[in-house]
């Protein structure tokens, strides 16, 4: 497909969305719950292509953004221990805690190493037998099995000094919490393609059975996203509520059962706090008692003074994550809070809604809106 053909395909899809939406006499709001979708939608300018009554809102799809401040504070506190090496994905480095960030702690001499895979922590642990190597296990269903497998691999290899600071989160319980929130108004979901690789489409069937809402699992190409929107709009117009799979080359109905079994062995679902959403029942993963000796919070509990008390902020990241406020409705956006001096995680993370809005949407955002 050439660029011209691709453009024609996009125009056909946009026309199909407009045609379906024309039959609906109200505002339709579709939510994406994956940071990679958020970035792709902004970069491709998809919001500007949609008819007036079809609106896209971003949900809590960026793991870095939904992780509360106190997790970062704990990570920074551990990194400051002289016998600890922290390993982390690079996107955690700039996330602000209450007083500092991992990046700032690293500048001050803390041993923090960026890894591509949690498995890279094993070699670091092997090379530093007198240190405790702590991996920051943050992420959704896609990433959680990789941390669980790393724990099992450490057991098999007899590496005793590898630990986890776990704050993994589960997407479907957060979607339920949003749908149960009377402030949040959503007519359907663009479902996260790579979370569904693990969970399968099956994990999202509750949308049709319990909430009578459509959802479409899709990939990250602009045309794939437009196709999912065409399907969502058609369903909404017809009053249907089906969960469909637009990413069948990658996502199966039952996902990856091996990944889920490994995850299940190491972790159990627990109530968990999300930024902006509060505590959501069974929405997080904690290490099972059998693996308590791999849980750094169990092995090396922090002293009360090591984590700073919570600070009040005007940052509205929490409301942005629920889709009830636009970034521009935050008093800090674009003023005190910019990508180079970010106050909240939604601006820090490249997948954050505020960062995407700032980068792709600020000046041009009114374009195409009638």
């Amino acid at each position, binding site marked *: *497909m*050439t*660029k011209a053909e*691709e453009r024609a*395909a996009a125009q*056909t*899809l946009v026309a199909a969305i407009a045609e379906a939406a024309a039959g609906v006499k109200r505002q339709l709001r579709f939510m994406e719950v*994956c*940071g*990679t979708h958020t970035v792709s939608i902004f970069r491709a300018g998809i919001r500007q292509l949609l008819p007036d009554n079809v609106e896209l809102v971003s949900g809590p799809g*960026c*793991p*870095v953004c939904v992780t509360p401040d106190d997790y970062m504070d704990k990570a920074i506190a551990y990194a400051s221990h002289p016998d600890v090496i922290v390993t982390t*994905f690079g*996107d955690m480095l700039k996330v602000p805690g209450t007083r500092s960030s991992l990046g700032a702690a690293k500048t001050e001499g803390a041993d923090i190493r960026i890894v*591509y*895979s*949690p*498995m*890279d922590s094993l070699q670091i642990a092997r090379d530093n037998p007198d240190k405790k190597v702590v991996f920051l296990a*943050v*992420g*959704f269903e*896609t*990433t959680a*099995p*990789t941390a669980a*497998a790393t724990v*099992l*691999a450490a057991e098999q290899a007899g590496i005793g000094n590898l630990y986890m600071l776990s704050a993994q989160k589960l997407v479907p319980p957060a979607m339920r919490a949003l749908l149960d929130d009377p402030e949040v108004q959503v007519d359907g979901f663009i479902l*996260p393609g*790579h*979370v569904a*690789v*693990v969970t399968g489409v099956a994990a999202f069937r509750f949308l049709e059975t319990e909430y009578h809402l459509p959802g479409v699992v899709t*990939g990250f*190409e602009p*045309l*794939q996203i437009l*196709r999912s929107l065409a399907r969502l709009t058609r369903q909404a117009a017809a009053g249907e509520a089906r969960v469909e799979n637009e990413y069948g*080359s*990658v*996502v*199966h109905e039952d996902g*990856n059962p*091996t*990944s889920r079994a*490994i995850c299940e062995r190491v972790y159990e679902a627990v109530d968990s706090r999300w930024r902006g959403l509060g505590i959501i029942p069974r929405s997080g993963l904690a290490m099972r008692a059998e693996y308590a000796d791999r849980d750094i919070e169990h092995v090396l509990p922090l002293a009360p003074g090591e984590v700073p008390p919570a600070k009040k902020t005007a940052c509205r990241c929490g409301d942005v994550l629920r889709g009830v406020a636009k970034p521009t409705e935050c008093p800090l956006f674009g003023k005190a809070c910019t990508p180079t001096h970010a106050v909240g995680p939604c601006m820090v993370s490249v*997948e954050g809604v505020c960062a995407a809005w700032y980068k792709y949407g600020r000046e041009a955002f009114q374009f195409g809106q009638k």
Partner: protein
Amino acid sequence: MCLAVPAKVIAIDGAVGRVERAGIEREVSLMLLPEAKVGDYVLVHAGFAMQIVDETDADETDALLAEMHGAPRTVELEGLH
């Protein structure tokens, strides 16, 4: 954070596979996808193979990578209507 790319499995040694993608090779863990075989295209996330994928999906991403390097875009997307 959930970024993942397809790559072709070119060798397997126990639970470790070697994958190739656009001329770059690296090791991935097969712990989460023990059914992967040499020649399969697999979705790779954080150093782990996560799922066997259709070759067409790998081709799409290959075309994207080629485009990043300046080639004209030739993505083939089926089933558009």
